[in-house]
C-alpha cells in the first residue's frame, strides 16, 4: 500500500520525525567529538602563540607556515612562555590558563560596558623577551584574529593571523607567509603615538624595505580583509596601550 504523502498529518509527522532524527545525530556527534575538537583548538592556540614569537618549524622554508607538531606543542609552550598575564580593570595578575581566554567574548563584554580580561603572553627565547598580544576583529565575511609578538621597543618580532571564512586566494591570504612576514620589523609606534600598522594599498613599498612607515603592502583583491587587519591591530594596540607603556624602553 502506498502512503499518501500529500496528507497534512503525514507532512507534519514526517517533519517532526526528521527533526528529531537529524537533531539526535548531530547532538550525539557533537558531544562525542567535543573533547577531541577542544584539544585540537587548544593545541592550535598554543601553536599560533609560539609561531608569532618565532618558535616554529619554518627553518629554510620561505613559503609555507610550519607550526611545531601538536604532540610536542604543550611542552614547548610551557618551556618558552614564561608568564601568562591577565589585565583586568588596570590590575595585572598571573593566570596559567590565560591563553584559553576568548578574545571575542572579552571584546563583546567591553562593548556592553562589562568588565573584561586582556591576556598577555611573555615568552623568552635566547635571552630575549617577547610580549605577545592577541587580537580579534572583522574581515569581509566573518571573524579574523591573530597574535602579534613585540619586543620592549614595541617593534614587531612576528605575527600570526587567521580567519574564519575569508575568500580563498584573496582575503584568506592573510595567513600566508608573504603577508605575515612583512610585519616583522615594523613598529607600532609613530613617534610616541600608538599608531598600529596599516595594511596599505599603493604605499610604493611592495618589498617592504621601509620599516618605520607603520605600513605593510596590501593583498590584491582583498581590500576589506586588509582594512579589517588594520582596524584589528589598531583596536588591540589601543586596548593594550596602558600595559605596553609599562614595558616600553623609553
Amino acid at each position, binding site marked *: 500500500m502506498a502512503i499518501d*504523502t500529500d496528507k497534512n498529518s503525514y507532512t507534519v509527522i514526517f*517533519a517532526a520525525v*526528521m527533526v528529531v532524527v537529524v537533531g539526535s*545525530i548531530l547532538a550525539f*556527534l557533537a558531544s562525542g567529538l567535543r573533547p577531541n575538537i577542544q584539544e585540537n583548538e587548544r593545541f592550535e592556540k598554543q601553536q599560533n602563540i609560539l609561531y608569532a614569537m618565532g618558535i616554529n618549524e619554518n627553518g629554510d622554508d620561505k613559503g609555507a607556515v610550519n607550526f611545531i607538531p601538536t604532540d610536542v606543542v604543550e611542552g614547548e609552550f610551557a618551556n618558552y612562555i614564561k608568564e601568562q598575564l591577565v589585565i583586568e580593570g588596570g590590575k595585572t595578575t598571573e593566570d596559567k590558563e590565560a591563553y584559553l581566554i576568548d578574545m571575542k567574548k572579552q571584546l563583546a563584554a567591553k562593548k556592553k560596558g562589562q568588565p573584561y580580561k586582556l591576556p598577555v603572553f611573555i615568552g623568552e627565547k635566547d635571552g630575549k623577551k617577547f610580549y605577545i598580544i592577541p587580537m580579534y576583529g572583522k574581515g569581509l565575511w566573518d571573524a579574523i584574529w591573530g597574535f602579534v609578538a613585540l619586543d620592549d621597543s614595541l617593534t614587531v618580532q612576528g605575527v600570526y593571523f587567521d580567519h574564519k571564512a575569508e*575568500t580563498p*586566494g584573496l582575503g584568506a591570504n592573510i595567513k600566508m607567509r608573504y603577508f605575515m612576514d612583512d610585519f616583522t620589523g615594523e613598529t607600532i609606534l609613530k613617534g610616541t603615538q600608538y599608531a598600529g600598522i596599516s595594511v596599505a594599498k599603493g604605499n610604493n613599498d611592495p618589498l617592504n624595505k621601509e620599516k618605520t612607515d607603520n605600513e605593510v603592502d596590501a593583498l590584491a*583583491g582583498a581590500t576589506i580583509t586588509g582594512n579589517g587587519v588594520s582596524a584589528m591591530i589598531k583596536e588591540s594596540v589601543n586596548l593594550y596601550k596602558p600595559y605596553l607603556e609599562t614595558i616600553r624602553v623609553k
Partner: protein
Amino acid sequence: MGLLSKKDTNLILDPLADNNPITIQVLGICSALAITAELKASLVMAVSVIFVLGVGNVVISLMRNIIPSKIRIIVQLIVVATLVIIVDQVLKAFAYELSKTLAVFVGLIITNCIIMGRFEAFALANGPWKSFLDGIGNALGYGVILLIVGFFRELLGSGTLFGIPVLGDPIAKTGLYATGYENNGFMIIPPAALIVVGIIIWVQRMKNPALVEEN
C-alpha cells in the same frame, strides 16, 4: 560487458561535457566565481562536492517515496546541511588542519544550486545506484570546470600553480618576468572567473554547434 551499462556510463559522462552543470545548465556559478582564484581551493571544493552530491543523491533517492512533496525542498536542504556538518565535525576532531582549509567551503556547499538541482531533478525520481552515478557525474562536471578556471586564474593572476611559482619570481624579475611580463591582477578578482567561464562556454559551443540554443 563492462561494470557499467551504457546508460549508466552516460550518467557519469554526460555532465562532463554536453550537459555540464556549469557551462550548459549554468548552475553553481556563484561558488565557481568565489573560490577559483587558486587551484588548490578549486580542488578542495571539487572533492567536497563530489562527496556531498554522491552521498546526498543516494540518501534522497532512498527517501524518495516517503518525502512529503510539500516540504521536499526543506528536506533536501536538511540532508545536505546534515551531511556537510557531519563531515566538518569529523574532520575537526581527526584532521584539524584539513578542516580549517574546508571551513569556508561548508556554507558554499550547502547553498550550491547544483546539489539541490540534482536532488530535485534526478534523485527524487530514480533509484539509489543511478542517483549515485548521476551525483558523481555532475560533481565531476562541476569540478572539471572549477579546475580549468582555477588553472588559468592562478597561472595568469599569480604566476603559480598549487602555490608553486611556475613563471619565475615576479619581485626578483626572473624567468618569464625578466622579459617584462607582469601578473594580471584582474585575474585574481571574481569577474575574471566569469570571463574564463564565458570563454569555456564559447569554445564548447563552437566545437559542438548542437548545443547552441535556437532563437
